[in-house]
């Protein structure tokens, strides 16, 4: 995958972030928690902060929106020095997402999302429209979820609302502090896909702290590997870090070299997807079966009115019905275009299926990926490693 071409296609609504000698000292501690960090983050890029716990990555993140006041150094958003700016005003321009979303339990989903626009003085109608738009963006039906309270949502849904809330006033920068740490692996993978999709649409500058290196490889345009004192050990693309770890420390940390790691580097979009026969809910079954038989297909992907996958029945199953049924298969294996082969394999295993449906923009069907293709990719990388 060529990084630059993807970059060029993207819309960019983020701004660059530049750190100059940013330092945090706590009284009574000999060594600074963050020691004179210089870092430049390009507009519209997702940069992942990884490192052992206590290395100062979270402290550095919180200095970006001044939840922690730096003891020294300068922070620029674009060309603007924000080090001396009123923190509250600054934060309204920076989205902030934490674990479990940090939703206020006594406010409805809609109220939670509308807080920042409200503080910025938007009128009610505009806030309501924006709320619905954002719920739609993160894949939650506004009619259903707008007036619910956070406790009525699942962990993954709360996290989506957390992202929507952070995006409410369309901030150029998004800070995410281990946001997906508290959800189960399958939900986490869905949320990651979702974030990738949203980022593709919006092109924010995202700074994302994680302790999960696979997550960093999957989500990041660039990864910063930190050591104690927030020392930047390596700052590069995931591919480069895996291929050439700067120090033994990095190699140990990322577990580079392991063949299967390469699976996290390959996106579903980079493989050749199979185009399945699709059928809309309610279509005449016989016609669909005829189409599939003509194309020599065993399975048909059923989609709803908006092109989103609903189920994945076999031709034999379909031929027993008169019209294509709309029953939603909750165990349907789905991954996004920006998911990694690792995710795809995980999803297949979890669903005990030999393939996954791949979705693209707005969750519409982009193709299918079968387990043989993943195997082929593993074979290919093993060949490379040997050669």
């Amino acid at each position, binding site marked *: 995958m060529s990084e630059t071409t993807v970059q060029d296609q993207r819309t960019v609504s983020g701004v660059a972030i530049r750190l100059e000698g940013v330092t945090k000292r706590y009284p009574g501690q000999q060594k600074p928690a963050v020691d004179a960090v210089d870092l430049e983050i390009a507009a519209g890029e997702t940069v992942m902060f990884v490192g052992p716990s206590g290395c100062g990555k979270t402290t550095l993140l919180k200095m970006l*929106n001044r*939840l922690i006041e730096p003891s020294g150094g300068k922070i620029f958003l674009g060309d603007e020095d924000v080090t001396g700016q009123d*923190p*509250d*005003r*600054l*934060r*309204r*321009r*920076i*989205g*902030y997402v*934490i*674990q*479990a979303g*940090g*939703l*206020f*339990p*006594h*406010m*409805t989903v809609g109220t939670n999302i509308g*807080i*920042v626009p409200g*503080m910025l003085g938007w009128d009610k109608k505009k806030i309501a429209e924006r709320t619905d738009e954002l719920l739609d963006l993160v894949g939650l039906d506004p009619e259903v979820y707008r007036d619910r*309270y*956070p*406790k009525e949502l699942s962990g993954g849904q709360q996290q989506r609302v957390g992202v929507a*809330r*952070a995006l409410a006033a369309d901030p150029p920068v998004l*800070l995410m502090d281990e946001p997906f740490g508290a959800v189960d692996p399958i939900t986490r993978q869905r949320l990651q896909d979702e974030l990738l999709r949203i980022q593709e649409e919006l092109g924010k500058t995202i700074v994302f702290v994680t302790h999960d290196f696979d997550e960093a490889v999957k989500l990041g345009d660039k990864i910063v590997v930190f050591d104690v004192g927030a020392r930047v050990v390596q700052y590069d693309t995931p591919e480069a870090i895996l291929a050439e770890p700067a120090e033994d420390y990095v190699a140990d940390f990322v577990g580079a070299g392991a063949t299967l790691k390469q699976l996290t580097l390959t996106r579903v979009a980079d493989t050749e997807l199979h185009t399945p026969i699709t059928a809309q809910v309610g279509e005449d079954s016989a016609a669909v079966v005829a189409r599939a038989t003509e194309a020599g297909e065993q399975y048909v992907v059923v989609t709803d009115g908006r092109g989103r996958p609903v189920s994945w029945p076999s031709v034999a199953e379909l031929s027993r019905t008169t019209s294509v049924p709309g029953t939603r298969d909750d165990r349907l294996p789905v991954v996004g275009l920006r998911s990694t082969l690792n995710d795809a394999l995980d999803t297949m295993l979890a669903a005990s299926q030999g393939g996954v449906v791949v979705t693209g923009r707005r969750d519409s069907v982009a193709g299918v990926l079968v387990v043989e293709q993943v195997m082929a990719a593993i074979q290919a990388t093993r060949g490379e490693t040997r050669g």
Partner: protein
Amino acid sequence: MTSATDPAVDPAVDAQADVEPGGRRDGFSWRGLLLQPVLVLVALGAFAVWRATADLTDAEARPLAWSALLGSIVDHLELVAVSAVVVLVIGIPLGVLLTRGPFRRATPLVLGIANTGQAAPAIGLFVLLATWLGFGFRSAVVALVLYSVLPVLRNTMVGLQGVDARLVEAGRGMGMSALAVLLRVELPLAVPVMLSGVRTALVLLVGTATLATFIDGGGLGLLITTGINLNLDALLYSGALLVALLALAVDWVGRVVETVARPKGL
């Protein structure tokens, strides 16, 4: 660490019960909320029947005339209301202040002093204040305030401290000012605990205000002491019963308010 004279439901007890949060609320559900006022009304009805039919001496009948009784109750409630207002005005802002940044260090000290002070018997407090400020309503109010400010103060602090720190950070992180986070996040979330402290204080006040009679502060306690001193049982029991019913009624109103004012979504 709890109250001395009056055994009103104390947050100290609630705090112990917090070992299993919600245990109290489960045990005291809507059924309990309905039972309590019925109990009070039945007892009040029985009292009214007894009062209307009882054969009373002149010395008993005068203070037990309906207008006199009503006057005693109003006096009592006046003591409670004035003290409660002062308690709220002092307790809540002080509790908020003591949970703010620089003052947080003083929290254990203040709570320690307040807890030790609570071990002082209320009757001693009344008498000491009377020697200092003289007999009367004012001394009684001061003693009552000193005595019942702790539950409000403590529950305000406990309630605010109980708010998930990550929610405060989320609020600050999205650009809410410290005041906005306090008003829109921390206080609403602390409301259930704070209200429970207010109810505790009110019940404590109703009970403790009976002692005001010892320093000429008036109220229903006067019926009890007069009854004991002059050996007029009818007065004694009327006073005791009415105070108990009043405390139960105030407690019930407090519970209803707590149930209604509990923020949705919790």
